[in-house]
């Protein structure tokens, strides 16, 4: 234990001396939350729509006004003819074009149905669906006014009263920032530990350390201890930043969150150890860390891509991604105010113990080979 602490102290000195890397390890997460928190804004707005109004009537202008009155749609200007629509899509001038036919106003008073054409750039399917849905909602509202407004004779049959729980204003950052915390934690912890150890392997200093009477496991775990501190510091800063800058609520308790976070940090560090056991160069360690831990933590954890939309194979795979459980916990505590996560806690504990044992075993058998 004492020897392990000595190694920890040595590693601490290494970190302290390399101020630049330390600053990076602390400043980078903060910058990431700040920039990514803003950049990952999923709320669609300011989508450009071109309008081809062939009727030039009061009714057509009213429809256009209804469509462009929210900040979801921005008026990209009037089109002169249909020939402008496709080139406009190709040059990304607008995402959709609304064609109001000649005789729109007239037809609205005499005919049962009056067609309006929505031409939508489907390349970005998600945005296209949202634009389509929005424009149709505007037209549905117009239809309601036509039957029940002044001059109408009927009441609309059904009224949907929606209520949004846990994030009533649908603020994107409240969803993104807790997930970001888990991604940043795993990135910092795995990269720092694996590279710190592999660097000693690469430069040959690991051999020197091992000639001392210190036990192999003591070296490895001693080296990791300072990084638990850095990980905890990063977690605190990231979550505080989410609270202060992005106003992410805290419906649960900071202390409970801290306890779960510590467990997650241990998992991340154990993953870093495992990577350092199987790689020999920093470059390989880095690539393994990015592809083996960071990518799955971003892609398969439900961080931004809903797991339920994935094919079953990937859904199954997501069950072994630690970030998935930590993100569920973070969102549960911060947004819903839930405190007790028996399933996630059990799985994460098993993961932490298993990974630590595995790493210890790998090093036991590998150290002679250094």
């Amino acid at each position, binding site marked *: 234990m004492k020897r392990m602490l000595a190694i920890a102290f040595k590693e601490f000195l290494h970190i302290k001396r390399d101020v630049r890397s330390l600053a990076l390890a602390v400043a980078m997460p903060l910058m990431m939350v700040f920039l*990514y928190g803003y950049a990952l*804004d999923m709320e669609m707005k300011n989508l450009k729509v071109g309008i081809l109004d062939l009727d030039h009537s009061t009714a057509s202008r009213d429809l256009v006004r209804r469509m462009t009155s929210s900040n979801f749609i921005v008026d990209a200007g009037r089109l002169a003819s249909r020939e402008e629509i496709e080139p406009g899509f190709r040059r990304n001038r607008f995402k959709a074009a609304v064609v109001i036919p000649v005789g729109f106003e007239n037809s609205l008073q005499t005919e049962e149905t009056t067609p309006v054409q929505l031409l939508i750039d489907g390349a970005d399917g998600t945005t296209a669906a949202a634009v389509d849905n929005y424009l149709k909602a505007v037209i549905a509202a117009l239809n309601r006014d036509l*039957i029940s407004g002044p001059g109408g004779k009927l009441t609309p*049959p*059904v009224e949907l*009263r*929606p209520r*949004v729980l846990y994030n009533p204003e649908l603020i994107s950052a*409240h969803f993104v920032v807790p997930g970001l915390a888990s991604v940043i934690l795993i990135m910092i912890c795995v990269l720092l530990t694996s590279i710190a150890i592999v660097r000693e392997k690469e430069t040959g200093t690991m051999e020197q350390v091992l000639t001392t009477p210190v036990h192999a496991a003591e070296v490895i775990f001693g080296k990791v201890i300072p990084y638990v501190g850095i990980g905890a510091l990063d977690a605190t800063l990231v979550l505080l930043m989410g609270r202060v800058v992005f106003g992410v609520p805290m419906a649960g308790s900071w202390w409970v969150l801290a306890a779960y976070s510590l467990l997650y940090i241990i998992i991340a560090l154990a993953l870093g150890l495992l990577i350092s056991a199987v790689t020999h160069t920093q470059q390989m360690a880095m690539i393994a860390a990015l592809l083996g831990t960071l990518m799955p933590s971003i892609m398969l954890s439900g961080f931004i891509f809903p797991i339920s*939309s994935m094919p079953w194979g990937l859904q199954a795979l997501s069950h072994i991604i630690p970030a998935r459980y930590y993100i569920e916990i973070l969102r549960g505590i911060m947004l819903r105010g839930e405190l007790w996560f028996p399933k996630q806690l059990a799985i994460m504990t098993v993961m932490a113990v298993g990974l630590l044992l595995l790493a210890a075993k790998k090093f036991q058998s590998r150290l002679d080979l250094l």
Partner: protein
Amino acid sequence: MKSLRWFIPVLHLVKKEFRQILRDRKMLRMVFMMPIMQLLILGYAATTDLKNIRLTILDQDNSPDSRRLAEAFFQNNLFVHGPAAAGQTEMEEHLFRGRADVTIWIPRGYANDLASGRTAEIALAVDGVNSNAAGRTLGYAQAVVRQEETRLLEQKRLSQPALKIHRVDAVSRFFYNPELESRNYMIPGIAVILVTMISGMMTGMAIVREKEMGTLEQLLVTPLSPRQLIAGKLIPFAVLAFVELGIAIPLAVFWFHLPLVGSLLLFAGCTLVYLLVTLGGGLLASTVSHTQQQAMFTIWFFTIFGILTSGYFYPVENMPRWIYLLTYANPMRFFMSITRGIFLKGVQLGDVVQDLIPLFIIGTITFTVAVLRFRKRIA
């Protein structure tokens, strides 16, 4: 002739570089596995489609009308049945525990209201944690109710022939991707990310590695001029980027059935312009870093930020004003738009010029600064 004499030593260096890359078996495996893995994982996982929304309906009216409304929600495969609930508290509990994504309550008297011409109210509660999914879920639910409403009005009209209802009928037509498959939009983006990672990150790290090992100094005492040295170090990674694309594009077209309507030649040309940025960026990062770790962090940071502000995940128009303005300095944004345009819309040179010019300007600046800095450092 002179240029040939200049180039021959460069070729030797390129050969040495390739030998170094090919010798490292793990590295090699990585180089070939990366495009395949990325395409498969990103291609399947990076979907912003919303499927299998778990909906719990509490139908307390239990009339033919209310049952018809309840069934209407499950007709287009967007919603799946969530756990059943006996009362409102249980429904809320399902939401709180994350067992259902959205709940709908049809109160007693729904059919009665419809029959007597009053507006029947139904209540919806959606879990807002995933703001994006919640907003879209709300939109889908409203669309279902709208449809049901139209049907009810139609019914009423049939029973009262004197009644005249006027309405606007919206007809949508989707260009380029009629099924609105989000994968088609994401996959060309993966090609952009692949090129960036391979050419940018590997260049930067390879140069710093030589620095770290001290072999860069050995290269400097050879008769190679700094320019030849730079060319020799960068060309292999440019080639590698094209190799990656050569693996990724057939995979995208034959496995994911990505429509490739544009010209591959135009894409290759634009990629060359983009390589100015990534190779220059890698070189630049190598001049400000002493260790591979620092180089990696620096490049990684810019790459991720570049991806986020490129419109890869979400349209850049969503972003706050100041970030939106920043995206104009992001070369990846322009290359992303070019790549998607060529793959999905079959755009021509005339259409990509607006993106190609800024890309070229950013590339030239990055590359020039990098070369100048590198030469100063080794002088």
